[in-house]
């Protein structure tokens, strides 16, 4: 089941001892994380473990108190959100945040914003550059709509789309900027098993077809174990484990973090059953 994708040698994103403190609470505590180019890496952990806070640090909403965030060799911690985006890091949100009163295709066009060079003066006199960019933007918008399977829904307001379509549109908007790193915050939240399967497949195709490095937060262990090349487990802001899915599954600390002390005995049964199921499938 584990991905056999060939990983690049280069490190895409790396956090070095990143800490974020709110008042007296250390939400993220000296977390080290390193994701090679072309990997699908997951961050898991119980609620309140600091996963989203770490995302917010990477994407520039929060400035970490300590530590460095390095994206392709360049320090990006404390940069403004929009410049982080223009470096090639795009993200989605736990609770979908589209531009609800814009059409689907407009959402994607706005997502391409950092790539536009024409400014407002170009727009007013309608220069060649502006016209070209506009044409390319719409083309790109159509292409991405097709890519995420929303062809024909482009002129509907984002708020009127069904839930699953909104999730995919959010990813399309993130892709519009041709990112090199995609941060997905619970991409399968609120989905039924079929939709989840589709989404899992889709995420893998993002990496395989577009070569984008993906870092995701996910609660659905089935998805995580299925697609991850690497898993990082956070608990109370601290990294408690890191490794390949199989290593994480059997890690005592992780099981205890999720189920409390003594939880490992509980999971034995579950793992046994899972093995049997695998045997049947294979």
């Amino acid at each position, binding site marked *: 089941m584990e991905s056999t994708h060939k990983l690049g040698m280069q490190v895409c994103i790396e956090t070095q001892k990143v800490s974020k403190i709110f008042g007296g609470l250390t939400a993220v505590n000296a977390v080290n994380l390193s994701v090679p180019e072309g990997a699908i890496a997951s961050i898991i952990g119980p609620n309140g473990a600091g996963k989203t806070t770490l995302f917010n640090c990477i994407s520039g909403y929060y400035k970490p108190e300590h530590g460095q965030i390095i994206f392709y060799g360049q320090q990006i911690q404390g940069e*403004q*959100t929009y410049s982080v985006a*223009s470096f090639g890091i*795009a993200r989605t949100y736990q609770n979908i945040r589209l*531009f609800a009163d*814009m059409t689907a295709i407009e959402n994607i066009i706005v997502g391409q914003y950092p790539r536009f060079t024409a400014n407002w003066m*170009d727009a*007013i006199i309608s220069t060649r550059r502006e016209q070209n960019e506009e044409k390319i933007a719409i083309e790109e918008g159509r292409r991405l709509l097709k890519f995420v399977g929303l062809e024909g829904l482009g002129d509907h307001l984002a708020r009127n*789309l069904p839930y699953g379509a909104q999730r995919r549109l959010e990813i399309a908007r993130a892709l519009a900027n041709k990112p090199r790193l995609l941060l997905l915050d619970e991409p399968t939240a609120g989905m039924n098993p079929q939709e989840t399967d589709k989404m899992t497949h889709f995420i893998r195709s993002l990496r395989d077809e577009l070569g984008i490095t993906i870092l995701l937060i996910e609660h659905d262990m089935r998805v995580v174990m299925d697609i991850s090349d690497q898993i990082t487990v956070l608990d109370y802001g601290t990294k408690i484990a890191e490794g390949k899915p199989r290593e994480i599954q059997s890690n005592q600390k992780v099981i205890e973090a999720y189920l409390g002390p003594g939880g490992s005995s509980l999971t034995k049964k579950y793992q046994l059953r899972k093995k049997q199921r695998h045997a049947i499938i294979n």
Partner: protein
Amino acid sequence: MRTSPVRNGIQTGTIFGIIMVMMFLIGFTVIGAELIGKILGNPSISGMPDLIYFVIFMILVGVWCGVSAAKRPLYGPDSVKDAVLAGLSAGAICGLCAAVTGFIFGSVAANHIDVRAYLVSVSPESISMFTFNQNPTLGALALFGVMTLSSFLSALVAVEVRTSQKIRTMIENTSGSISETVHSQRISDLLNNKYARYGFYLIVAIALIILPRTWGGYWNYVFGTVGIYIILGLGLNIITGWAGQLVIGYVAFFAIGAYTFALLTAPVPHNLLWNFWIALALGIVVAGISGLLIGLPILNLRGDYLAIVTLGFSEIIRILLKSDLLTTFTGGPRGVHDVGGPTLFGSSFNTDVDFMYIIIIAVLVVSFLAYRLQNSHTGKAWVAINLDETVARATGINAFVSKLLALALSAAIAGLAGALFASRNQFTGPDDHQLMVAINVICLVIVGGIGNIPGIFLGAFALKGLPEILREIENYRMLVFGILLIVMMRLRPEGFLPAKRPVLEKFTADQRSSTDPASHPGNLETNTPPGKGK
């Protein structure tokens, strides 16, 4: 939950009773009667309108009261009795309020006490009209009777109309055929037809060229004002309608444009007498720069601070202009007179007709700019910031710079409007730059349809054009604005002509209908997303 019809009637009646009493206290009963007289082609000559028009006015209020009491959606399909009961009780309560007021004021007037020291609008004439020129008791009874009867009868009629299948189908057919005509393929084809559109433009262009020459100075003045307000509305729309940052003190930039222009062209106080066009350009630039300077420290703060800071800024500017401190520089409270008019190739160009042309051209230019900006990436970025600033920043939009640009452009356009205004009136003074100007502009943008260019035209005509025609309600204009703002925000926050998003994916009609998510209602309703996440 089912409430008793009488209770509902009493509620509606109380509201209408309060409205009724308030209308009497602010003297609107007289104005209303006068308006009705005017509409019926019989304007009052001797000051007070005829009693019959007042009776009609009261009946109208009663009818409205009865209909809205009967309209409450808690009655079954054929509970005629309930609805009529509600109408009756509403009318009775409303009439009671009016009658008590009429009795009190009638008695006061009978004792020759003038209440105008405290309630300016309640003149003895209006009291005597309110009590139907009778003594207090009879007047009160008459008021009660008129209100109750009209409310009761109208509720009866309303329920009949609502329950009668025949009338209902008739109404549905008419409205259906109207909407069919409006939305019919032929008309939309006509609108999309290139030649038809060019023809339309041609007609508008000819009208715009001919009309200012023919309709005379008064209408040129009225529509010149409307044009300047359109420019202001288009300007404010950039920062408020698209970028979503409320600017209350927008008049500050108007004032800066007007004064820059006036001081550069007027003989007093500086005697610079610059050329119209250079001064106009400078007025625009100075206003734009002031917008930039105001926005620089404020725009990265919480949104509503911009509203309050610009409000403060506009008050500062007005007070400074009015004070003695700057009299030598800006002419002080008396303002700047003999502001220069436009010239064209050395010859003067400032009759009212010429000026109307300049305003028309300015309106066209500004709407063209606005149109281009709306469809540009910058325009989309503004809307994105308006909808969700956090996400907009995460998609790579530099929200601060975008908002700054929007504010500077808005301010520059206000500067243009100010310069034109000063030049047309050949005068500018502190009283031209009251806060009410800015509030009018906010109103017209919102009423017309926030973020929508045609909506702003509509709003400007409705808010600046109509009051010029209906001179009677001059004093009540601001009151009506206030009510309008509250009601609009509650019932139709998107305005009369709401903004539409452009069609960019351009699918043909049949393809679109087959993939319309609205055609899969189950899909939509079960999976409605949990909102914007805020």
